[in-house]
């Protein structure tokens, strides 16, 4: 899934320059962010995790597992594809297999959007727009594994796995094996 998006949007092969986080580092960051979500919201009452297609979906599920371990609560997990809400139609593909599935009415819920990389902020903006069509959430928070800077919109994350200064032409890859920084060739 993610591989397909990469082949479309990046048009080349990802060549890692350096490994920034190991698989264990990512696991610890997920657990820490999960605890931060519970701490910030005084528990998990009304909390819904929504993974952004495609990179945020596995992370959202891992955070839900971490929350179940830590708090003994099963938090609902949804997925959101923002392709129809983007401001750059035609530049990014619609992935038919990247479905939107919001498990409940979001009115009065605390929605934690989960994504792998926060970059320009345009995906997050589109996600905020999309979410508003599923109800009036009490609050929306943003959790990302990597904040790589270069924001083009006034958007900031609430939970960050790793702040990672990058050059604009670099590519950040988040996977099961960890986080790597590199280029497309």
């Amino acid at each position, binding site marked *: 899934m993610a591989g397909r998006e990469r082949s479309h949007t990046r048009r080349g092969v990802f060549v890692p320059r350096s490994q920034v986080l190991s698989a264990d580092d990512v696991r610890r960051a997920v657990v820490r962010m999960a605890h931060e979500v519970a701490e910030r919201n005084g528990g998990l009452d009304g909390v819904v995790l929504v993974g952004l297609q495609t990179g945020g979906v596995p992370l959202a599920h891992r955070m839900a597992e971490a929350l179940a371990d830590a708090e003994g609560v099963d938090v609902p997990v949804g997925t959101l*594809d923002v392709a129809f809400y983007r401001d750059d*139609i035609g530049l990014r593909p*619609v992935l038919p297999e990247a479905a939107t599935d919001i498990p409940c009415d979001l009115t009065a819920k605390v929605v934690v959007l989960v994504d792998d990389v926060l970059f320009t902020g345009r995906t997050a903006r589109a996600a905020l727009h999309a979410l508003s069509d599923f109800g009036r959430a009490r609050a929306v928070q943003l959790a990302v594994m990597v904040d790589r800077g270069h924001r083009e919109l006034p958007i900031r994350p609430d939970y960050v796995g790793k702040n990672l200064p990058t050059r604009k032409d670099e590519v950040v890859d988040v996977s099961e094996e960890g986080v790597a920084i590199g280029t497309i060739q």
Partner: protein
Amino acid sequence: MRHLLSVSDLGREGIEEVLAVAEAFAEVGTRPIRKVPTLRGRAVATLFFEDSTRTRLSFETAAKRLSADVLSFAAASSSIKKGESIRDTVETLEAMGMDALVVRHASAGVPAQVSRWVTRCSVVNGGDGWHEHPTQALLDCFTVTQALGGIEGRRVLVVGDVRHSRVARSQVLAYSALGASVTLVAPRSLLPPSLEGWPVEVTHDLDGALAGADVVSLLRLQAERGSGAFVPSLREYSARFGLSAARAARLSPKAVITHPGPMIRGVEIASDVADLPQALVTRQVTNGVAVRMAVLFLLLGGHA
């Protein structure tokens, strides 16, 4: 691709792309707010020189769900009545900034002609004469895929007035491109004069064909195109080629029945058959909106 004039413009890959994107748009139809901002600022005009209920409403609903602006043009209440040519009408609409024109006309080839006049717009064939109705065939394939899990290897019967049916022509192309085998079932008088090059089998015996069918696609007897003169009587036509309850009972339990609408109950389909759960008519209508959203989206810039 800029225009959709015929199913053959798409090929198998193109059809599969439309169906896949339609899947994503079908989800939009289930949301509390059935609208996305994808085509905000774009304008779509429906340019219908022939009567239509569902195709026109379906395209307009699709465009509105994508947040496009929609202009509805009906020839009967336009300057066409004053003698303005189709070409001048089209150029006027394009000069107003339309991004897509959905064209229906009683003569085959009008959408193709319009596509040669426009300089910037996309043209979608909303049905032209006896020629083609590509979005109808696409939504049929989408609905059958949803019901049966796939088209490849299925046996499809296209029953009725094939001669005057643009739906049949588009269906034959779409179903066979997706790997189904298509059999036309009709009296000799309601088949086209030549079927050379059509990837189909032909039979005049509906009863013999029913047993092995996975899909029965019924066509309306097109009275406005003079079909009545091609059969001895409606009652005789119905007796030999109508899907009666007795015939429906002989279908495989997994088989599905489609009809592009409008249905004439009691002629090509018995009233109680039209209301069976395996008759997918209303699902076709629901899916039509998603499929047309996909077509407009793909023509106006998106890609899968």
